[in-house]
């Protein structure tokens, strides 16, 4: 329907309209894309970003100077080899699973996997550690998005949750001695969720009852959170024996049990499984409960949802609380996996979570692969830097990461935009009954993920 309006209704002699119609038709096509098509689009975007990144590497390699060429194409030497860089970026993050002798293009059929490679290597462990935290922050942003709220405050909620849980656990250490220290872990997670949730509820309540723009309030509350954390740790709870501004160490028993992976890695499979369980719970909450139904209809068309009997103010506060609670758990998991104590400033997982959520199209399940891509890029940047055979400025690696994220996120971004401006999107926004149709039509059915 929308594509008809796009191509047939246009007049080819007026190029301006033609372009506009084409753009609209393209957007409509994106909005109507199925889950499988979207996965294909993301994959194509990934390949395209790598191709363009390779050109950037080559161009930078020509403008730079070096003693020996890293690679030679068409008789020209280049200082940086794009293949080696991307090899490090992706395979380095996985711990070099591919045997260098395995080269089917040139007729070498050695064993495809490097000898001695296991999925339980340190590099993959770091990748998955990053992924675990990013899943939580991505999920936090996605839940708020679903309710039509742009929660930029995930970072602040994460800081408050992580700090509160650390302080409470530290305070309870004398109470839970011996074997009972195991009990501190679940307590910490609950405390992180409660404080993160409360901190998320503030901008939620401000939006619901005072009509304050959540984008502004959450940004501001991020500053409040990081400053409060810095003050409290520096002035009140500083570890007196340390050079750094950090809290006292949590006792050794308070951590996620480490299975399968080496002790020196920060990663815990238990933490990842816990987080995946939260993903499943969030999915269930959004898709199969009446609260989730209210939340999603509010996100699609608030006025219609209210007309249909949804208490919109309460839904806003509740969704922000859930979003904040997930971020707070993220802060706790970050503290427990990386440090075993709280140290400001917390890296920008909350802001990365916004991109993760957009990459995932705000689908709770999609957050997992999106966060994994982020984890690979972060971990791969480290393997590039620590590999003596790859010479490339770290800033250029940042450019490559940015290109990949930009390209993969853009189709989803245009899809979100497209919903507002095309017929395909408008259909799902007109009238309460239409909203109900839209929600029902993709209620858990594979391939029907077309809501915001």
């Amino acid at each position, binding site marked *: 329907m929308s594509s008809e309006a796009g191509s047939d209704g246009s007049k080819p002699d007026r190029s301006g309209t033609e372009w506009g119609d084409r753009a609209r038709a393209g957007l409509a096509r994106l909005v109507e894309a199925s889950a499988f098509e979207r996965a294909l689009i993301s994959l194509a975007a990934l390949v395209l970003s790598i191709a363009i990144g390779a050109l950037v590497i*080559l*161009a930078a*390699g*020509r*403008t*730079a*100077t*070096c*003693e*020996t*060429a*890293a690679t030679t194409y068409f008789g*020209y*030497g*280049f*200082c940086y080899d794009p293949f080696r860089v991307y090899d490090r970026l992706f395979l380095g993050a996985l711990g070099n699973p591919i045997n260098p002798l395995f080269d089917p293009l040139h007729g070498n059929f050695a064993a495809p996997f490097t000898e001695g490679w296991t999925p339980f290597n*340190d590099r993959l462990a*770091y990748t998955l550690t990053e992924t675990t935290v990013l899943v939580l922050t991505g999920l936090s942003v996605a839940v708020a998005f679903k309710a039509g709220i742009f929660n930029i405050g995930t970072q602040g909620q994460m800081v408050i949750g992580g700090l509160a849980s650390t302080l409470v656990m530290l305070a309870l250490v004398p109470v839970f001695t011996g074997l009972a220290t195991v009990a501190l872990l679940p307590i910490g997670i609950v405390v992180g969720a409660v404080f993160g949730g409360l901190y998320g509820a503030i901008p939620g309540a401000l939006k619901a009852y005072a009509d304050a723009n959540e984008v502004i309030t959450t940004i501001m509350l991020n500053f409040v959170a*990081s*400053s409060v954390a*810095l003050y409290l740790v*520096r002035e009140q709870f500083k570890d007196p024996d*340390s*050079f*750094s*501004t*950090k809290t006292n160490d949590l006792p050794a028993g308070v951590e996620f049990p480490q299975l399968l992976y080496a*002790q*020196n890695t*920060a990663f815990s499979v238990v933490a990842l499984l816990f987080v995946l369980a939260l993903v499943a719970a969030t999915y269930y909450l959004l898709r199969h409960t009446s609260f989730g139904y209210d939340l999603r209809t509010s996100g699609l068309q608030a006025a219609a949802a209210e007309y249909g009997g949804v208490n919109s103010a309460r839904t806003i506060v509740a969704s922000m609380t859930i979003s904040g609670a997930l971020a707070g758990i993220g802060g706790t998991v970050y503290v427990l996996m*990386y*440090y075993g104590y709280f*140290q*400001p*400033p917390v*890296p920008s997982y909350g802001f990365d979570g916004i991109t993760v959520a957009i990459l995932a199209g705000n689908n709770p399940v999609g957050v997992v692969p999106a966060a994994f891509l982020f984890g690979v890029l972060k*971990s791969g940047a*480290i*393997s590039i*830097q*620590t*590999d*003596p055979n*790859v*010479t*490339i*400025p*770290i*800033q*250029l690696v940042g450019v490559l990461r940015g290109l990949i994220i930009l390209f993969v996120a853009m189709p989803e971004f245009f899809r979100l935009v497209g919903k507002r401006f095309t017929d395909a999107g408008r259909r799902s926004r007109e009238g309460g009954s239409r909203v109900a149709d839209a929600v029902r039509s993709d209620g858990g059915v594979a391939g029907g993920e077309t809501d915001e």
Partner: protein
Amino acid sequence: MDRRKFLKGVGVAGVVSLAGCTGGPDESTETDGENQSDQQQGGTGTDTTSGNESESTGTDSTDGGSGDGSDVNVGMVYATGGLGDGSFNDQAQTGLNRAAQDLGVSFNESEPSQVSEFARFQQSFAQSQDPDYDLVSCIGFLQAEALTETAGQYPDQDFMIVDATVDADNVANYLFAEHQGSYLVGQMAGLLTTQEFAAGAGETNPEETTVGFVGGAEGSLIGKFEAGFTAGVKAVDSNIQVLSNYVGGSSPFNDPTAGKAAANSMYNNGADIVYHAAGNTGTGVFNAAKEQGRFAIGVDRDQSVTKPNSADVILASMVKRVDTAVYNSIEAVVNGNFEGGANTTLGLEQEGVKVVYGDQIGGDIPEEVKTQVSDARQQIIDGGIEVPTDPSNV
């Protein structure tokens, strides 16, 4: 169609411009030559170039090692500010480059962006088999926590850390007596604020005897700078007022705006000279000094050279030879006398810290001031003056 023509044009222009680039390996001897001389200047450690520009081009960094015989490999983990900060990390790189040139070691550098990444970087170097790193250099006290764990996990790997003490048999600790160097610049500031003095773009206010100190983040390390500085000022005249401010915030050592605001309020309150120990935040201090026509004192490197735009207000710099620490530790590994578990403090005596007068206006400082400063230096070395390390004890 127009669009196709445009695309073709872009494509052709891109190819032409790519071909026209005078970079790349082995071709244009001119640029190669330039680059090598840059490297040499960066490596001599004499601060005669405005270091960052030649160093931050990133073309020559990763595989150093002009390789004459020595097969020692060094893994370098910089502090979070990264290269190009014009002080701390660049100073460390100077030492590394010098070691590569003099001792022929190979090295691999890395620039973590978060404190939480330190452990991963340290482990990567410690784990590496090809090459097997003989020494892993860790720059900055923020790496201490991570290194405590990493050093325990890799007992056969040698590490060195600058600015902190890690209690392990395989870690060489390098500390600096920043308070001693700060005492000397404090003395100089105290002597100058009590007299009428004008040089370059600045002058003192003879009616006020006030100086200032801008620190990055509060803590025992930056406290040493403040304590030494205040003690040096008070040694001249205990009535001189020392204003002190810590920038704090989320990036205390990379916040020139906050540094400028802090320094401006000090200058407005009558301060003649402001000393900073705040990394890149200090750039703001220099800008404030220029605008107000007052003076500033640099830190870590000779900042009248690394920040040439402010050379007309920088009286002196309290230089901290991080490069010496890096070089010495590498030299020890090369010579086979690396001492794990040792604490080395580089003070005035070892020239680990020293006062370098400004490149442009340092010559205008009266000779009797300089004499008193060098007298005080000798007294500290001889033990005649005990410089406090905690600002609350001054």
